[in-house]
């Protein structure tokens, strides 16, 4: 597939990284310093030009593109680039990144001439809200209209012995779920029944939402439903998070240091309590009992501030902290200092956009552990060698089927179940094996 990407920032780079191996990619950006590293690392064409220029797009060969992605940080550039691409390559699928919720709404209402619109803010907000709904999880995503949930857990110390340290086939695993992968010190296994989980492992679980919740309580007992979340930072991301959480009936308190912005957020979100303060004032944290919140989300503009505030919040007793990271490197700092979940808006956005580059049969993709593993949602072809096999007889070749969607409803297959042609399967695999998996199914 020929792909033209406008914007070589973090989002653009992540997309290139995920797609360069199987596709022909051209990248357009105004900044040479962003293009050069891409050109050296990957086999892609780079064009130093303004993406909102028709000529630049023509030079980059937009007329032959199958997929056009405009993912600069500026909405207007993306929109203009996309409208040019629409004319030059009427058959190409177009994707824009936008930070304006209004554009997303317009796109959903069919009033914006692009095929897909992705908002970093909304994707981040959804990621945060999924984590908050599942406090023990490192990451979680849903498939098949919410019928299937994928969750990545840390196995804590002192976990239930009927679950941990017991071979999987004997362990008391919640119904309608299975362990897709066990990640132990950088190495990943796709477990058979004789494997067992150990303390300190990271596991990937697939199951119904109920089963996922059951896993959550097994691995993090005592973490009940969340009612009180404090969001630090009232920028676009923080506001989107607060709005999403409010929509789920979760009580939100938001802290914003800039007076005018605090006022704007308070006006925009009537159900949300907004405080105009820095968030790192211990007196304030004490007075407002921030420590009693069940979770805190750090969505301020600077990673260092978020880091400090998150640590302070933990000192004050907030049990669950989620940080929005802007610089990839910060993720390690956060994890080292004990922040429970980190979410990188650009990575989340890239992941959402990469979904459109896959085989047309592939409906959805989630990346785990950065971009090392992917979860795919693929429709099986009648010619696939796996069709007609019982699950227990399937060879494991670096991929594991976690669930199938048949006639619109999800099944979690047991060993005796048989894969049928036309089933949608939800598969876990390493990113490098994605093309093989798509081919084989």
């Amino acid at each position, binding site marked *: 597939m020929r792909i033209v990407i406008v914007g070589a920032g973090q989002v653009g780079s992540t997309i290139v990284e995920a797609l360069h191996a199987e596709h022909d990619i051209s990248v357009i950006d105004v900044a040479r310093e962003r293009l050069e590293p891409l050109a050296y690392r990957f086999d892609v064409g780079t064009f130093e030009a303004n993406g909102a220029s028709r000529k630049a797009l023509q030079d980059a060969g937009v007329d032959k593109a199958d997929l056009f992605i405009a993912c600069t940080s500026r909405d207007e550039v993306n929109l203009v680039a996309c409208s040019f691409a629409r004319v030059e390559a009427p058959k190409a699928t177009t994707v824009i990144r936008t930070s304006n919720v209004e554009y997303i709404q317009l796109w959903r209402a069919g009033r914006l001439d692009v095929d897909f619109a992705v908002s970093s803010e909304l994707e981040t907000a959804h990621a945060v809200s999924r984590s908050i709904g599942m406090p023990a999880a490192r990451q979680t995503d849903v498939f098949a209209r919410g019928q299937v949930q994928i969750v990545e857990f840390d196995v804590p110390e002192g976990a239930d012995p009927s679950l941990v340290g017991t071979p999987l086939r004997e362990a008391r695993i919640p119904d309608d779920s299975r362990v897709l992968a066990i990640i132990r010190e950088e190495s990943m296994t796709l477990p058979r029944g004789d494997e067992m989980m150990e303390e300190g492992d990271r596991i990937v679980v697939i199951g119904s939402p109920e089963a996922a919740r059951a896993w959550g309580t097994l691995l993090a007992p005592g973490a009940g439903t969340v009612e009180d979340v404090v969001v630090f930072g009232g920028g676009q991301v923080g506001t989107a998070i607060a709005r999403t959480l409010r929509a789920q009936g979760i009580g939100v308190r938001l802290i914003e240091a800039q007076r005018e912005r*605090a*006022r704007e957020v*308070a*006006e925009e979100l*009537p159900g949300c309590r*907004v*405080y*105009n303060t820095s968030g790192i004032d211990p007196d*304030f944290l004490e007075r*407002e009992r921030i420590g009693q919140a069940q979770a805190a989300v750090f969505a301020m503009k600077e990673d260092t501030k978020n880091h400090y505030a998150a640590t302070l919040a933990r000192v004050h007793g907030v049990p669950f902290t989620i940080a929005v990271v802007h610089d990839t490197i910060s993720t390690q700092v956060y994890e080292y200092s004990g922040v429970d979940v980190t979410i990188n808006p650009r990575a989340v956005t890239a992941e959402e956009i990469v979904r459109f580059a896959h085989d047309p049969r592939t409906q959805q993709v989630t990346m785990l552990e950065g971009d090392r593993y992917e979860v795919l949602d693929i429709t099986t072809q009648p010619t696939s060698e796996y069709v007609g096999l019982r699950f227990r007889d399937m060879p494991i070749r670096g991929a594991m089927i976690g669930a199938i969607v048949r006639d619109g409803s999800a099944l979690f297959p047991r060993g005796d179940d048989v894969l049928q042609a036309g089933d949608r399967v939800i598969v876990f695999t390493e990113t490098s094996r994605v093309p093989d998996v798509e081919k084989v199914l």
Partner: protein
Amino acid sequence: MSPTRGGAVAGAERRIAPTRRAAVDIRGSLSLVGMLLKYLSFATLMPAVLAIGYHESVVPFVGATAIAFTVGLALERGFAGATSIGFREGYLVVALTWVAAAAFGALPYVLSGDPQLDRPVDALFESMSGFTTTGATVLTDVDAVDRSLLMWRQFTQWLGGMGIIVLALAVLPRLRVGGRQLLESELPGPEIDQLADRIRDTARRLWLLYVALTAALFTALVAIGVIGKDGMGPYDALGHAFTTMPTGGFSTEPDSIAGFDAATQWVIVVFMIVAGMNFALLYRALVRRRPGRVLGDEELRVYLAVLAIGAIVIATEIWDEGFATGERAIRDGVFQATSLMTTTGFSTFDFAGWPTLALMTLVAMMFVGGCAGSTAGSIKVVRHVLLGKSLRRELRQTVHPEEVIPIRLNRRVLDERTLRAATAFILLYVGIFVVGAGVIAVDAAFQGPDLTPIDAIAAAATTLGNVGPGLGVAGPIGSFEGFSDVSTTAMMLLMWLGRLEVIPVIVLATRRYWTN
């Protein structure tokens, strides 16, 4: 400014510097007031027609037209020239227009030679009370006054209700000024609700609705008069339609509404309630058929709730104390609560003799008033609502000092300035009321009449709130005739201040208004 400083562009320099004009364009304002008076002078032709029909003297009306027209024309022409009527002149124009209107309205009373009204102070009081839709009167014997003159009295209230300037904006070919500032100064309430893009169309729609409602009330009253036993004839119906819709309160009968039957009284209750509602909202409900938004309006809900509570308290009290029973007690309670809260001032009973709780409730309701954008006077419900919300926020912020709490009305966030203005208005209003009550009480101690403290309070509250009747000698069947000229003048000022919602008049008394 010297041309060297700042190196300003020559053209810009020329525009800023040369017209060495006063901070306020007084000449232009007077010219505009003159023009308004010129047109207003034709208003007396309405009672003149009646006078011909009733074989009464037309001299007072035609004379008033002639004098007012001449003065108006003289002012308009005398101060004609390049004017710059802007934001600041708006206050002066509005304030002066209402003085001019009151003076013009007094002319027929003086010219008529009617013994109760021909003293200039009395005539001016009656006229000011008319235009400001107060309804306080110096008449002691209504029946002795010519019918055409009485109808003029009713008509002044109708003209003043929706506003003289709003009327001018609606019907005059063109005012040389933007109009928005004038409209804001004259229409009651903290902010105006535009019904159309052009101020003129907004003014037209408001007046149209006002005329339609008046016509509906007139028809209803006449219909009841035809069917019922003690209803109104066409003359009374017109007279009372003219004073119900502007929440005025003048009556063509000595005992106000008391002599009419229950159906008439209930109809008037309904129209008083309507007159106390926001006309822009009413327009949306009736003309654009969007009743949902009207029923959900926060101010309207509070308005109706306060009205209901007041009515229940009064009805219970007078029933309990034996002043009336059954439907009569309910009707009197509802009628009087509605009449005083909407600042109309009609009465079905001489409530001055009611028990203290009922009286206190009535006086308290005088301070509530109707909705913003209605024809009612006083503080207005919305300002009470805003004050309440501000206070609640203060309390919340005492505990949570960092919390940012925008105040919303009907889910819309309000400007902090609007909130401050509402609070300032209430403080000014109460301050003026206290001063007014003090002046009246002190003056009454020297020159009569015999007033209790609550009577003095009621007299100030009733005139400042444009309600009408007070308590004691100035009660619903009494008259303000017994007050000295000092008190009468003070009360005229209160009516004027009250009708223009204090601020446009008070700013004229500040030095910074007249200097740059």
